[in-house]
């Protein structure tokens, strides 16, 4: 397993769908730089050339120039092109072209103060029913104990494993307040909003160990809401999943929260 060294600039993109995001960010920054430098040079030139000095008189006449008109038209065309050519299609692909559940790794991500619960359906690929009334320390998602389909469900805390080169279909929700699920290297972000289950997807093109960040202020432990992403080879993933299933002796999954991720005072 390789570790990423983060630095200045965009972190490496290890996802298949994230290239569109990067491309747009880069294009927009070039546009910004061109416009800013253009303006800036003209601005500085004006400051020097038209500085007040003895003998100079300002002219009442306004410059007869079509320059601003051209600039505005150019900006309009550029923005329209970026919108129609890049942003609409990329956004629709990300939001509407969800992978089919049978072709994807299905997971539920349930945020809470201040951990990420990752819920895997297990070998039957069907999620067990959950209900808030079953929630307890040993059953963080409220898995229905009477539902046979929930017996093989794996629930991890802050540990997100998935295989490389296979789409992952995740639905995101929250138990308490609004969080935001963010994996920088996968260019994935989605608010986790209680009462809503929002589907997102991604597909990794590289293996490695990365982190999940919370991007939305969620209380005094916001900064501690760090999760771990492990993009595995299919073999590694299967082995890990087997390990998790083996631990499922007292169903449902007893996911105890590591003490280190539990802040002292919970709001």
């Amino acid at each position, binding site marked *: 397993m390789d570790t990423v060294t983060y630095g200045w600039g965009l972190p490496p993109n290890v996802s298949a769908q994230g290239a569109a995001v990067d491309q747009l960010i880069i294009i927009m920054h070039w546009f910004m730089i061109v416009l800013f430098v253009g303006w800036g040079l003209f601005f500085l030139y004006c400051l020097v050339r038209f500085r007040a000095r003895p003998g100079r008189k300002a002219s009442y006449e306004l410059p007869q120039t079509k320059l601003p008109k051209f600039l505005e038209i150019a900006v309009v065309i550029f923005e329209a092109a970026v919108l129609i050519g890049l942003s609409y299609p990329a956004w629709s692909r990300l939001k509407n072209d969800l992978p089919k559940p049978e072709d994807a790794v299905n997971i539920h991500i349930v945020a809470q103060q201040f951990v990420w619960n990752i819920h895997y359906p297990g070998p039957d690929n069907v999620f067990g029913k959950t209900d808030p009334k079953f929630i307890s320390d040993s059953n963080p998602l409220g898995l229905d104990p009477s539902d046979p389909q929930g017996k093989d469900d794996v629930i991890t805390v802050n540990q997100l494993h998935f295989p490389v080169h296979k789409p992952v279909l995740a*639905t995101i929700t929250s138990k308490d307040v609004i969080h935001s699920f963010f994996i920088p290297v996968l260019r994935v972000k989605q608010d986790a909003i209680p009462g*809503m*289950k*929002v*589907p997102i997807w991604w597909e990794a093109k590289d293996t490695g160990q990365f982190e999940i960040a919370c991007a939305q202020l969620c209380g005094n432990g916001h900064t501690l809401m760090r999760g771990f992403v492990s993009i595995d080879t299919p073999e590694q993933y299967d082995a890990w999943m087997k390990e998790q299933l083996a631990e499922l002796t007292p169903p449902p999954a007893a996911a105890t929260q590591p003490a280190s991720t539990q802040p002292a005072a919970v709001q």
Partner: protein
Amino acid sequence: MSHDALTPEAIKKHVRIYIAVFVTLACLTAVTVGVSTLHLTPALAISVALFIATIKATLVACYFMHLISEKKLIFSVLFITGFFFMVMIFIILATTRSMFVI
């Protein structure tokens, strides 16, 4: 005031209009309560109730609030407000209804 020609005679005429508007409002209130007991389909019930309410509101605004003889400036203000009011209600509603929720 914007009532340049508000002679006592004109006011007398106004008063008669006020009474007529009042009677209409009372009748419309009775109608809207009556209709609500009819068990219409929700869509129809909402349409009828809001339609009657709009008529009543228009009457109040036009006659009691003198909008019918009001100046253009006031209409401009109300037009802008009405536009943003619609934007607020319908775009928030449309966005909320469009949420990707399973």
